[in-house]
């Protein structure tokens, strides 16, 4: 389906396929989840050239992969991510805290470029992750801590 014809109603709410019950979701979803979900859905409406330099429209598979990633990583204590479209058609999720920066470029369901910096420890990582997202879990937990 052409991206321009997609609407919010066409987008699968990833929570529908969650193994959690509705009650569990109320207890475990972070308070920002709905707003971030809406921001991700809004990316479907961007047209090619949205950045004024000829950017590709965000790809549906990248938007959905960002949904799924947030579902996998989110916890009640997780801070709200910023949702940023990339000129390449991907989606970037980013968190900025005084001590920690975490940016995840979501290019497809199986390709994530991650930048992590902890200014207190001096630890800086730049990694391309495919299926194994375990390093990401530990960095996200630091944001929540």
């Amino acid at each position, binding site marked *: 389906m052409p991206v321009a014809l997609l609407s919010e109603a066409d987008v699968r709410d990833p929570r529908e396929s969650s193994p959690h019950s509705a009650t569990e979701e109320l207890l475990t979803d972070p308070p920002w989840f709905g707003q971030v979900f809406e921001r991700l859905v809004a990316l479907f409406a961007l047209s*090619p050239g*949205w*950045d*004024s*330099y*000829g*950017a*590709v429209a965000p790809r549906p598979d990248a938007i959905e992969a960002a949904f799924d990633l947030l579902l996998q990583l989110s916890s009640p204590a997780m*801070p709200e991510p*910023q949702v*940023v*479209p*990339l*000129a*390449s*058609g991907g989606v*970037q999720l*980013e*968190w*900025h*805290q*005084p001590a920690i920066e975490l*940016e995840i*470029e979501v290019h497809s369901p199986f390709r994530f*470029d991650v*930048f992590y910096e902890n200014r207190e420890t001096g630890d*800086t990582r*730049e990694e391309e992750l495919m299926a194994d997202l375990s390093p990401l879990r530990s960095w996200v937990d630091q944001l929540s801590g």
Partner: protein
Amino acid sequence: MMVETELPDDRSIGDEVLLWRRIPPLWYVSDGQGGRRLSSAAFQNYRDSDGRVHSAFSVCISCDAEEEGADPHGYIASHPGHGVAAFSAGLARSLEQRVARVPLEGELAHGHVIGNKPKSVQKALRRGATLLIEPE
């Protein structure tokens, strides 16, 4: 037009020359401390509609624009809500980038910042850039 991989660094563009980059509102994000900041996404290379990843992003070469009588406000006149960030050609070169003139019809001061841009380079450009006009 030459593809960007063939374009050499144009040393007639001095290190001190500012390169302007339009910033759509979506690239101006919360800084987590009550303010806002540029996203590193503003400094990614572009991909064309065929999916081919290029090794460049577009800028306006300020000295050329100013010769034409343009200023940062004029650079975004056709793009309501956008802001303008500026960084020096010297900063780009210090990050192993090349700077080249790529004049376009109607935008003679158009240029490219060419080179591989891993996250560390994107973030260094973000840190070194000054926001001349805030996105709305």
